[in-house]
């Protein structure tokens, strides 16, 4: 990478239907985080208190797939406001483990959990308008918006994320290569 320029790239991140493990892997770049901060600033992210993604973001990083209407809304906001959008990790790329619910009807699951499970004092399906509507199936994010890069792995390692970001910051086409490209 070149020496840090005047303008830092603005990076927004979010976790949709994911486990936060990809964000943890991002932090697994360890002390290289401080180097990265010479080149980027964080916009909306679980690490900051910025709640809306700013209209001039350079890079959006999406962890997790889509399991409810709010996930879809947030994803569209990211696409609208980020020049480059990246799907990071198994759930964003193909739905991941949460998509294992896709062979079950949602109504059956809700019924089973909130009415018939043992140890319940009362039976009731949460239905408040504040709760976003669940989707019938969990979807990978490229089914809804255009994705520029896919970073596989559950999660991709800190080294893979570092290689990807430093390639991008240096103006190279990102390439993980052998050892960093994996799906587990």
């Amino acid at each position, binding site marked *: 990478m070149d020496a840090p320029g005047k303008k830092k790239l603005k990076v927004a991140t979010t976790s949709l239907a994911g486990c*936060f493990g990809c964000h943890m892997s991002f932090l697994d770049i360890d002390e290289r985080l401080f180097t990265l901060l010479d080149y980027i600033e964080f916009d909306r992210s679980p690490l900051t208190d910025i709640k809306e993604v700013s209209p001039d973001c350079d890079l959006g990083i999406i962890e997790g797939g889509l*399991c409810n209407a709010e996930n879809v809304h947030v994803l569209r906001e990211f696409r609208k406001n980020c020049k480059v959008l990246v799907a990071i990790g198994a759930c964003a790329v193909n739905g991941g483990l*949460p998509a*294992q*619910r896709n062979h079950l009807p949602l109504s059956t699951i809700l019924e089973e959990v909130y009415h*018939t*499970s043992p140890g319940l004092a009362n039976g*009731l399906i*949460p239905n408040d308008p504040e709760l976003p509507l*669940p989707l019938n199936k969990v979807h990978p994010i490229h089914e809804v918006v255009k994705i520029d890069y896919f970073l596989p792995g559950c999660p991709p390692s800190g080294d893979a994320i570092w290689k990807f970001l430093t390639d991008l910051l240096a103006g190279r086409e990102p390439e993980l290569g052998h050892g960093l490209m994996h799906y587990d």
Partner: protein
Amino acid sequence: MTYNLETAAHPEKLRRVAIDPVSRVEGHGKVTILLDDQNKVHQVRLHIVEFRGFEKFIQGRPYWEVPVMVQRLCGICPVSHHLAASKAMDVIVGARKLTPTAEKLRRLMHYGQMLQSHALHFFHLCSPDLLFGFDSDVTKRNIVGVAAAHPETAKRGVLLRKFGQEVIRHTAGKRVHGTGSVPGGVNKALTVAERDELLKDIYPIIAWSRDAVHLIQKVHIQDPGLYNSFGIFRSNFMSIVGHNGDLDFYHGSLRARDDNGKLIFDGVDYQDYDRYIEEEVKPWSYMKFPFLRSIGKENGWYKVGPLARVQNCDQIPTPFAEHERKEFVDYAGGTPMHAPLAYHWTRMIEMLHAAEAIKELLHDDDLLGADLVVQGERRTDGVGVIEAPRGTLFHHYRVDENDVVTMANLIVSTTNNNQAMNEAVRHVARRYLHGREVTEGLLNHIEVAIRAFDPCLSCATHALGKMPLEVELVDAEGALVHRLSRS
């Protein structure tokens, strides 16, 4: 025990303010506040807005997949789920007692996780509030701001977390979502080279952990008016405690106390957890509300996690952390401390204990052993419980004769704190927002109260798909005649 701001009488006449998403916490949650024309608070709720369905879709899978699958509930504390599921499957495969190598390797993995998770929460997520103030500049109120203003503190936070992650990598194979623990034991011992690599760094890790305790202790006692009362509510508390009442994150029996510290139960075998805990559903959250059966849902809810554990145990079995525990107990003045912000102080005491326990384990040659797995008489029902970074975590499975999971029930740490977190935010809303113009800084006060509990909202969104309670009447050929289900 409760502030009654859960449900407004006439919500349709009120103005809604939302904190969405709650940030600098793990997972997806939002807070809604209903205010009248004079900005008086009528309703405050922390909603868990997502669910995923793990308990349902692992039904039908072979049992040995479960420890690897269920850790995908949470990327911050995957080891907790990995190990709680493994412990339940130990019961299933009849592994009543693991080999010393297996048990110590699992402990090492777990204490590594406790260290990294507590460091992440304190330094990366919460230190901006504690160092800069709850209503400080929103653009600097994050780890980047801490790195600029307190570079050494930020660096230590990153390196403490890194060390914990390396302990996990060496014991589980990967930093996030490893595979080291299997039903009946582990699949890999530590090599001499791996042990020596970890030993090389352990002494600064212990020293920095002690410094972290002293940092938060100082912040706390310098402002008792804030730290001893912010978001305060009284409640019962619960955790597992180990042998002789030791603080033990990996194994023990259940102990609960009331708000005065008096024992409610003690020495309870967690295989019987469902006789002691019941759950309530509320329409406005996907997260259930657990409570102690013997007391009932009105007053039987409780808190879990560092503040509960450090006050529930009789002692901490490592010297530096035990010294800090006594300091804390002295400060509390002989009665239980209920202030949510005291979670931070006790969390750092636990991080110190984890660092010391890792050191002791690394000096134990059992870690290098070759005897990794045991099995015994198969059973069909198993419960695994562990103290995860955020509190007591329950995994319960049934497995049939074809090795297939037929039932799963999980009560995750954050769910145990559901009512407690709601009480804390209601207290803060009443104290700080009531009758005032709502500002970003005031809203952050609400989030500060939530963050104190270190909620793992991803873990909390698993809640789906337990075994239905069903009675089936079948005829002599096995055909279904009639089916009843509780609903």
